[in-house]
């Protein structure tokens, strides 16, 4: 059982991470001596909403072996468009932001699929351009959202522990899980990430899948930005790399490999929830900001190093060498052991 799990890191890693984080979360009263309340759970789900949609978008492209760096740019732009266009009608702002995100994602996906350019450099250039566009829209300053009714509505608790953004996040994950599990799309995307050439030869329409995935990641990022600029009642033209770091940690903890071909929406949800729990633990225990920053950096660095193919190759080589020496020693033992 354990061996079977260990050979499936896309299940093992998120499950272990989530269990560890849940235990740590439940143990926080031991540190600060204050019992957990339903508000802590509400806050955890708020944290999930903050990074969940980005994690899902980024994770989907990572499963297909790509990396959408532009999600932070689309996130910033989505927030800015929503605040600009949605002062009187929040729905209009939301629709405008999501439409822009989808268009940007589709354009990038088309470029990447059609010309077969590495997604990283395309999305990096788009990120620079989007950062400039967002900053040009706001003159480089934060823009406040004056529709207080919308801000109050969006953060009111639903069923004690949820809110509109966290429910939207959970719904997005549910939709993705159904599409991935119920249709052949999931298998096709994983195949495209595992061996692009073989899946093309096998007749999988990789290009169409890529356009779809990048459209999805752009849409989700813009939606996330719009929801949070409403929630904070302000749009920040340059959120920096922090949201990207958190969602990248969420993806990798969620069992996705940087090499592609591995992962599923349920794992991504577990990964994002683990990061949200970690954030809530940080908040409860009041760790200074730079230590939190260091913690996430260390976590991401360690995961990337473990995920690196070279390390595994090196370990395999070491193991092979150990095995050879053991065999050789056995051959040289005089006490009549069987020769191998």
């Amino acid at each position, binding site marked *: 059982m354990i061996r079977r799990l260990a050979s499936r890191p896309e299940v093992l890693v998120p499950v272990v991470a989530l269990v560890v984080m849940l235990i740590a979360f439940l143990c926080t009263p031991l540190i600060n001596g204050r019992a957990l309340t339903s508000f802590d759970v509400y806050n955890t789900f708020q944290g999930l909403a903050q990074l969940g949609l980005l994690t899902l978008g980024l994770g989907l492209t990572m499963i297909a072996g790509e990396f959408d760096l532009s999600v932070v740019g689309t996130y910033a732009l989505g927030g800015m468009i929503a605040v600009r266009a949605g002062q009187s009608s929040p729905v209009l702002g939301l629709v405008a932001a999501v439409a822009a995100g989808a268009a940007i994602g589709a354009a990038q996906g088309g470029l990447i699929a059609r010309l077969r350019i590495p997604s990283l450099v395309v999305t990096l250039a*788009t990120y620079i351009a989007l950062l400039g566009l967002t*900053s040009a829209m706001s003159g480089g300053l934060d823009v406040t959202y004056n529709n207080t009714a919308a801000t109050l509505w969006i953060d009111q608790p639903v069923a004690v522990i949820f809110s509109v953004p966290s429910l939207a996040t959970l719904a997005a994950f549910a939709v993705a899980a159904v599409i991935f599990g119920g249709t052949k799309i999931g298998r096709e995307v994983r195949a495209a990430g595992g061996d*692009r050439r073989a899946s093309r030869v096998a007749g999988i329409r990789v290009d169409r899948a890529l356009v779809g995935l990048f459209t999805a990641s752009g849409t989700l990022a813009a939606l996330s930005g719009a929801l949070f600029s409403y929630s904070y009642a302000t749009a920040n033209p340059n959120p920096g790399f922090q949201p990207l770091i958190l969602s990248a940690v969420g993806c990798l903890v969620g069992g996705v490999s940087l090499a592609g071909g591995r992962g599923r929406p349920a794992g991504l949800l577990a990964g994002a929830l683990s990061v949200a729990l970690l954030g809530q633990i940080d908040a409860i225990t009041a760790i200074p900001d730079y230590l939190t920053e260091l913690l996430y950096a260390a976590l991401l660095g360690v995961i990337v190093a473990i995920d690196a193919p070279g390390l595994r190759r090196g370990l395999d080589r070491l193991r092979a060498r150990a095995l050879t020496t053991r065999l050789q020693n056995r051959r040289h033992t005089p006490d009549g052991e069987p020769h191998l």
Partner: protein
Amino acid sequence: MTTAKSDRRPPMAATRWAPARWRADPLDIGIVVVVLAVIVAGILTTRFFSLANARAILASSAWVGITAIGATVVMIAGSAVSLAVSQTATVAAMVFLETQQFGLPVAIILTLASGVVITALQGAVIGFWTANPIVLTIAAGFAIDGVAIWISGGTTVYPQVTAFNALNGTPLGLPLAVYVLIALTVLAELFLRRATAGRHMYLLGENPAAARAAGLPVGRVTVVAWAIFGACIALTGIFLAAFNTSANSSLGGTLSLDAIAAVLVGGTAIGGGKGSALRTLGGAVLISAISDLLLLRGFSTGIQLLVKGILVLMVVVAVHVRSTRSRR
């Protein structure tokens, strides 16, 4: 990324109409168009073609250019890009200011050493373990930032002695950094073309599997490339510190993205194996000329960034189209 390189469509007789000797190179055409556009817009803009403005363009390209030369070496060696540059330059600037009391030469050496160590460590993880450079350097940038705030207490670093004033000199009317940039470009170009290690970097970037099979010390070559990069970032940090006379955690600004933009606009391929330091110098000067033009025309920094992003995207597409075409 690796799969994208190998799965080309079957060769086609695509360029039958073209003369056999000369083929329209999308990159060259694009660059010529952009340069012509800059010249035309420059003629229409008052004060663009003046000695003072030419000086300003060169001066503003110097800091980014120095870092971009290092980034070129790393990109040629196939490690793509680093997103930890701003933070490394900030830390280098802080080290430089904190070590002023030991005299300028010692301060410079210690700063260069700190930049080399920080960056070469990332190079080691990337070279020996083939870790993903983008995600690793994002993490490293965060870690460096966190440690810098931890040690400095989040405050601005002021020097006790100002031994660095010599670095702000302007011999023949140009900042010292411009001369350093030009010297560095020549050195890097010579290193890449003539030195064994430099040629190894092209091979490694062109085809890592072949380099490994040929017995190239892949890890060591990568670490050397990143160490050079680290020295270049530290140099930029030194000039930033000397110019600002103090350093806080936001000193590095958008240096990471600016350096990447300069390298990519210069036409160095993100996949590695192709490019040159001279082209990066051209890219850095072109970007600062465009930024300067937009500034003179009264556009905001946001618009400048937007134009930079679009330019990078165009050049990247052109470089890619060219490399796939030559393969057919």
